[in-house]
């Protein structure tokens, strides 16, 4: 501890697990937005990643509440948030936003998009697999052209609803921090917007990397048109995100309110590595430059693949650093603006580094399982996925 802190402030309240939570929900929102690019805005080039993006979103959404449960003093009481939600609490309302997004948007959209494949797989498998697909199909066998048209229409509506829902999902997390007037590092109306755009950046980067990885595992060729388009959207979204973060910074420096001197000192000492080096330089400026390079100059396919992979990886690290800097950074300084503390991150502890790393790996394990059950590649890219001529006649 350095300087003066209120005696109860020395210990940090929100750990690396709470850093993980906005990171994971951000990936969900970002992956979904990328998927909706094709569905609603008819960006046909990214169609090969449509289903993959949805499954990725689902895998991360399932894991998202887990760091919270590990963090709670009484996880067995967490149901109270649904029983007696306090209407003025952003955290309580978020429980319903999460539930809405999981049930009414993501699961529904995946089900409608995959329904035909589920029924086909139910018909072509045996034993427990068949039972699984029968349950997933809810016993419905109808995959006639008319039925699939209905699915398509409803799915389109759900995606339309899903875009603001995805914005809410992650904007709310930003609001949870941005609405805390006691903490000047968090308290800004820009917080939900910054969180949302950084979420989109991280989600798009994740889908880009996952697409490249799954193509490599399947030994399938990467659709460069698709990859180039994803990278383009990544670049543009990143420019907006960076602009917003710089706007926040410039405002703070210019207005220099009572907290500024303390926050400035913290930034130059305790947060130097994580914010200036990792988040701004390595995690933002370098990937932006790399992506800009691919936009302005002609690079070979191999060069582009390499640049995209590096840029996307650095982006994800940078966005994780941003979450770290917000959550941990907001607790390193005293609300008296006269002192600082340190975050002691243990390795093997309930809220330590090990559970955090495991929780970062888990979504990929779940994604693997999801891909096995609901393969995104029944059809090649370019096929009309939603309306197909190879429909079986009704029995």
């Amino acid at each position: 501890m350095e300087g003066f802190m209120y005696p109860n402030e020395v210990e940090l309240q929100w750990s690396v697990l709470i850093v993980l939570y906005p990171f994971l929900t951000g990936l969900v929102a970002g992956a979904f937005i990328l998927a909706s690019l094709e569905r609603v805005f008819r960006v046909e080039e990214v169609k090969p990643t449509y289903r993959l993006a949805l499954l990725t979103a689902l895998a991360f959404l399932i894991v998202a509440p887990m760091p919270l449960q590990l963090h709670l003093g009484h996880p067995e009481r967490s149901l109270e948030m649904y029983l007696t939600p306090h209407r003025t609490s952003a955290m309580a309302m978020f429980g319903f936003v999460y539930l809405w997004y999981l049930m009414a948007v993501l699961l529904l959209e995946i089900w409608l998009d995959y329904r035909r494949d589920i029924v086909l797989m139910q018909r072509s498998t045996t034993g427990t697999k068949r039972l699984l697909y029968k349950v997933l199909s809810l016993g419905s066998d109808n995959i006639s052209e008319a039925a699939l048209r209905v699915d398509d229409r409803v799915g389109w509506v759900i995606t339309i609803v899903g875009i603001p829902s995805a914005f809410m999902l992650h904007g709310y997390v930003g609001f949870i921090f941005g609405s805390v007037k006691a903490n000047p590092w968090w308290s800004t109306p820009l917080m939900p917007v910054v969180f949302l755009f950084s979420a989109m950046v991280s989600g798009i980067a994740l889908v880009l990397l996952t697409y490249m990885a799954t193509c490599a595992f399947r030994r399938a060729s990467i659709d460069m048109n698709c990859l180039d388009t994803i990278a383009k959207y990544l670049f543009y979204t990143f420019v907006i995100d960076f602009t917003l973060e710089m706007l926040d910074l410039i405002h703070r420096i210019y207005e220099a309110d009572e907290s500024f001197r303390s926050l400035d000192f913290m930034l130059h000492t305790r947060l130097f590595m994580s914010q200036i080096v990792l988040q701004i330089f390595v995690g933002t400026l370098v990937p932006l430059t790399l992506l800009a390079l691919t936009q302005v100059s002609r690079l070979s396919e191999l060069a582009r693949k390499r640049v995209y992979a590096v840029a996307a990886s650095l982006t994800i690290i940078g966005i994780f650093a941003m979450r770290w800097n917000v959550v941990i950074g907001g607790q390193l300084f005293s609300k008296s603006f006269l002192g600082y503390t340190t975050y002691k991150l243990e390795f093997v502890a309930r809220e330590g580094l090990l559970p955090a790393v495991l929780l970062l790996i888990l979504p990929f394990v779940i994604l693997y399982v999801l891909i096995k059950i609901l393969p995104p590649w029944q059809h090649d890219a370019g096929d009309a996925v939603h309306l197909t001529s190879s429909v079986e006649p009704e029995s």
Partner: protein
Amino acid sequence: MPPAAQPAPGTGGEEMNLTRRQLLVLLPAAAAAWEFVKAGTPEDAPSYKTDEHWWGMLLDITKCIGCGSCVRACALENDVPEGYFRTWVEEYHVDDWHIETPMVTSPNGGKDGFPQGSFTGGKNFFVPKLCNHCVDSPCTQVCPVGATYHTPDGVVLIDYDYCLGCRYCIQACPYGCRFFHPQKHTAEKCTLCYHRISKGLTTACCENCPTGARQLADLKNPKDPIHAFLKTHTVQVLKPHLATGSKTFYNGLDGSVR
């Protein structure tokens, strides 16, 4: 009145009268309440009506001697775990006109008093701190389940059997008065000794303050001497720009206090 028994300069000389008036107000209530305390019944004092009270506290910086009696008394009365503080005392040193950069210390929350220290000159004083029992408290606003709440008589309390331990309230409090209880695994803070004030007693900290720097205030009681004090003295609250509706009023609070 003997010279040394006179109150410190600036307090207006009403110190002795305050104590007598307090006795007049509290003694019959205490006598009645004590019966229940002795009987050890689990029921709340039946004669206590929440709508007849609106609790606050007056902290007189000109009287605080930094003895830490309040911190110790609170810890004993409320089983406060070591290293955490429902109330604490800070010592300020302000050099000349530099009110934006005071030197502040609070060794173990002031629990064992303060060492002599090496400051010379400047302005030096003690500031006791506790939960401000805000009317528009940001902490109750953010609690997701209603585990921290306002009582009808203006005290902010925590429901230890309902709290999830999410710690959002601890983040939302601008005054740093909340902490995470290491054994209960819930949020914890000053309760204004609700179990005492609802029985007609005063809080443990006010009871044990030797100079009357801390005084419980019942803002709904027309006979409460605090009303007169508030009318005749300049009082402030902490962080007024956050509009929390703090009900802990400070007499003689310097601009340097954070």
